[in-house]
């Protein structure tokens, strides 16, 4: 049963639209800097509860609504392939991989990246910036500085700031890393 337009919160639907067209993902939980905790996203709940409605809505205006169940996030894309979009995905994936590589290299657990009290701190960011290989990759992505690289992820909701120069990975960001761990585990079996 499709939900009628009258039953959808217009204000939320507008917020969802403006988040999507800005190229962001909507995750189930978003970190709230003031409450210092992850809180459930009302936009995600709205999308989740009225999935058919929003899927149809976005199809009607020329987009696909992508719902990632394991990663618990939504985003929209156009059906035709666009080069810009692939460039974006490359940047996001590569920066996430750099963060993850730094993290496992230290012998840390990747899950700690999603824990606000641990997260990606100032010293970690400094150490990443110091390594030549990471710096070379950043340049080959066409990103001028590390601040811009992190903002690139934060602007799209892959990272949430949780303090001064302190970030925590969103479920969308973590999903990509989990994907690699699962892929590796399957190859090993």
């Amino acid at each position, binding site marked *: 049963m499709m939900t009628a337009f009258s039953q959808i919160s217009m204000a939320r639907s507008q917020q969802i639209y403006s988040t999507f067209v800005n190229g962001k993902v909507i995750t189930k939980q978003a970190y709230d800097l003031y409450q210092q905790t992850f809180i459930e996203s009302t936009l995600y709940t709205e999308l989740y509860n009225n999935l058919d409605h929003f899927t149809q809505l976005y199809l009607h205006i020329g987009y696909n609504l992508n719902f990632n169940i394991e990663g618990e996030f939504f985003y929209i894309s156009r059906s035709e392939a666009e080069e810009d979009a692939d460039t974006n995905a490359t940047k996001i994936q590569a920066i996430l991989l750099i963060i993850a590589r730094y993290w496992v290299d230290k012998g840390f657990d990747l899950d700690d990246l999603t824990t606000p009290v641990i997260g990606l701190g100032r010293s970690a960011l400094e150490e990443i910036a110091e390594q030549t290989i990471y710096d*070379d990759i950043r340049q080959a992505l066409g990103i001028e500085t590390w601040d811009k690289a992190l903002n690139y992820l934060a602007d799209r909701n892959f990272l949430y700031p949780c303090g001064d120069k302190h970030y925590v990975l969103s479920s969308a960001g973590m999903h990509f890393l989990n994907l690699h761990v699962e*892929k590796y585990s399957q190859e090993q079996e």
Partner: protein
Amino acid sequence: MSEQRLLTIPTFSIMLEHHTIMRDIIREMDEMSEPYVREATFISRLHRYIQGQNKDKQKQLRTAFSTDNLLAAHILVDKDEFGGESRLIFDRSVIGVFRLFDHSLFQDLTDVALKIQLGGIRLLLAKLQSNTLLFSDSDLDFKELIDELFHRLSELLNSIRLNLVKMQMINQELSEASELAAKSDNPQVFSVLQRESIEKISLLLSRHILPTRQFLDEKSRLKDGPNLFECLQSLRSQFEHHQDHQRSTAMLKYEVSFNSFHSQISKVSQSVDQFLARSKKRLKQFNAIETAFSDLVKELGATRHNLKRSQIDGQFARDNGAFLGLMQQGRPKVLRISSSEAYLNNVVSDIEARVADQGLLEKNRYVDLISSKDDSTERRLERAECIYNLVKQMKMTEYQDLTLALQRRLKSNLPEYHFIDLLEGLNFLMRSNEILDGHAVKVTNFRNRIVQGDTVYLYRKIRTERVTQ
């Protein structure tokens, strides 16, 4: 080796003074899980140690550690030949003393060792239960049996206690090992070290910690007879039955002590369990990310081999298949017509400017130029002057698109207007402060097109803004 003989005490005191020799020997034996050490190994270890000492010490050590001297002092119980090798067997009590000096030398309790100890206690219990003994200290059989029982219990308690100390230090060792691993720059070394420590710790957990824990578990049921606590309880009731309250209390104390060991060893086994689970998870994560990262580095390498490509290709993202198509999307354009005052003012002032401009033009009508064959330079100069005059007369105001305004003007007033005239006009305009009349020129990033014949020219819009002083 020296011919001199020393008594047991001086020999032993020299061994104690240089206890690291024995520590290394015991470690060697433990690692090989053998109750003896090969003479060749022993001598080579001794030589290595002796080299760092002065002459007098060297002589003293050679004397004390010579095989013959050790045998004579009863520190070695036997020296045998086996398969062409000479093996030295130390007295157990000597080895025991050296184990006391170093936690790492405590022997791990195995399932078998524990079962043997339990077997001995069961045997003693069976004798006490057989009703063939007189429960009296004056009975020598009974006295010997009781002494043996207490000896065994205290030995068991002690060996478990020492093992517990060693196990409790595992966490420290683990963190040291992982620190060592983290310090290595080579990620492969890290991965190998991690795997090795996981293997070592799994073995310790399955062969030593878990059996000890099970042995100390009150609730464990054994196929071949009563468990340790059941034995202790039976012993306690036997003593109580014969009104021997002191010994009955002693049994209770043992029960309490063993029980407290159980809770301590449970803690160790839990933390080791968690460490193993975490380590395995981390190792998997490490390998997975390392694989993915090496693909990324390959892509980076590709940009270095190809001059045309300075950036990592989008194929990388497509292969991984996450977040494809994520980008900013264009919003619907709104038609910018409105009835607001500001908007209308803009339209009106634009019209006014055009009318005023036209008026100025009417006043100074220029003379048409007629071409002739040989005066091309003159003609171009005249034409340039003509354009200059047209531009000079232009009414300067805030144009949204200066190029378009200029084109309109030139196109309608210049015969055989050509695109090049527009460029010339713009050139005049933008270089002359007089014509600009206090307006600033802003080249914007907005683009527009103009058509000349069959050609479409794309240009960046130029805006003029009044500079308020």
